């Protein structure tokens, strides 16, 4: 890690182990993230990338070990931790019966909203201009993912946990996500991203984590 310094890491996992059924996916895994860090989690299918991300955001419990946010166990500071976190999983929680605008509006109203961008601007930025008011189920997989990604723009959180954010996106979509990541990290944010794609984000501290 390049800017180690005196500052304690914001997100820290110590000696975590994850079991799926009888199999141990990983054990003795430790990692830490500081403001401005991007962690790329790589590894073959079934190596536990999703499990690790779910553990990091508190959706799943590690079978041993602890995850800390600003020095406190995340099971102790749940509400505060979740206010500073966004998680986008494989199922990104975009409601097919609602329009992209409604989906985004609900997501923003439940989180720490960013004041300097409107919903229309955010939808425009992710390339959904003209699709604001059609039911999201009529959109393509890539467009639905863009609706989910727009959530990152309208909320103000420190930590992004993104599980395969490039799935179903075209090359322009991939560039968009990379730009969003770069902007987030430049503002002192952190991101943990699992991916198979090479990620081109310039001038940031990339921590690589290889799961086998």
């Amino acid at each position, binding site marked *: 890690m390049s800017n180690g310094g005196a500052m304690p890491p914001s997100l820290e996992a110590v000696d975590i182990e994850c079991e799926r059924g009888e199999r141990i996916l990983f054990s003795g895994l430790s990692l830490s993230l500081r403001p401005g860090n991007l962690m790329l989690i790589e590894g073959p299918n079934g190596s536990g990338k999703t499990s690790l991300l*779910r553990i990091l*955001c*508190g*959706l*799943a*419990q590690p079978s041993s070990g602890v995850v800390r946010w600003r020095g406190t166990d995340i099971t102790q500071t*749940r*509400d505060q931790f*979740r*206010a500073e*976190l*966004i*998680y986008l*999983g*494989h*199922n*990104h*929680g*975009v*409601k*097919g*019966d*609602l329009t992209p605008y*409604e989906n985004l509006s*609900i*997501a923003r*109203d*439940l*989180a*720490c*909203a*960013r*004041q300097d961008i409107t919903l229309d601007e955010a939808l425009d930025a992710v390339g959904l201009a003209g699709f604001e008011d059609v*039911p999201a189920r009529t959109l393509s997989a890539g467009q639905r993912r863009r609706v989910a990604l727009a959530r990152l723009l309208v909320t*103000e959180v420190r930590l992004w946990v993104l599980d395969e954010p490039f799935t179903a996106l075209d090359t322009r979509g991939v560039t968009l996500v990379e730009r969003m990541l770069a902007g987030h990290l430049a503002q002192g944010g952190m991101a943990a991203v699992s991916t198979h794609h090479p990620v081109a984000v310039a001038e940031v501290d990339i921590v690589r984590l290889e799961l086998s």
Partner: protein
Amino acid sequence: MSEAPGLFTALGVLIRRDLLLALRRRAQILNPLVFFVIVVTLFPLGLGPEPNLLQKLAPGVLWVAALLSAMLSLEAMFHSDFEDGSLEQLLLAPQPVFITVIAKVLTHWLLSGLPLLLLAPLLALWLHLSPDAIVVLLASLALGTPVLSLIGAIGVALTVGLRRGGVLLSLLVLPLYIPVLIMGAGAVDAAASGLAAGAHLSILGALLLLSLSLAPWAAGAALRISVE
């Protein structure tokens, strides 16, 4: 850094969201109500139009139909949110999980309990229930149907992750519904035979307070286990 929304704001947003979703799926709301009406109207046809007999059976029939119709709509409470990943998002939202559960229970009641309350007097007349008993029927349903939604929420939260959770859900929830059924039907029965229904209604009220204080936390914990 902006603040996370307050609890009541979040509650409002969640309720509005669920009502909006229900509005887009109208058939899903109407199903349990149509079921309630059909079951109750079939009894006079099956038993014959004997007023005394119908009057005698009315409290039980109305309450059993209300209970089954509440159960019919339970699974929808968390199912679609679980399928599309919204449930994870709700669990990761800054507000405590019990707020999510309370919002879900409230919408379930608004869409399944409240309409029953409005339909019940009409159907009670169809079964020759006396006006006094109808008033008690409304009171018992007003106190009892929220309990059904609250207890149901625990059951659905526990079974939402299972592939065939439906049968298990009935097995989990029905034993807990029985006291509500006994007290609810008992209250109407007492009123129909000219007795005081206060005791039954008090117990229903107590059940409501008990489930109101325990169910949101229990269901919240169950949801966490279900998404893991």
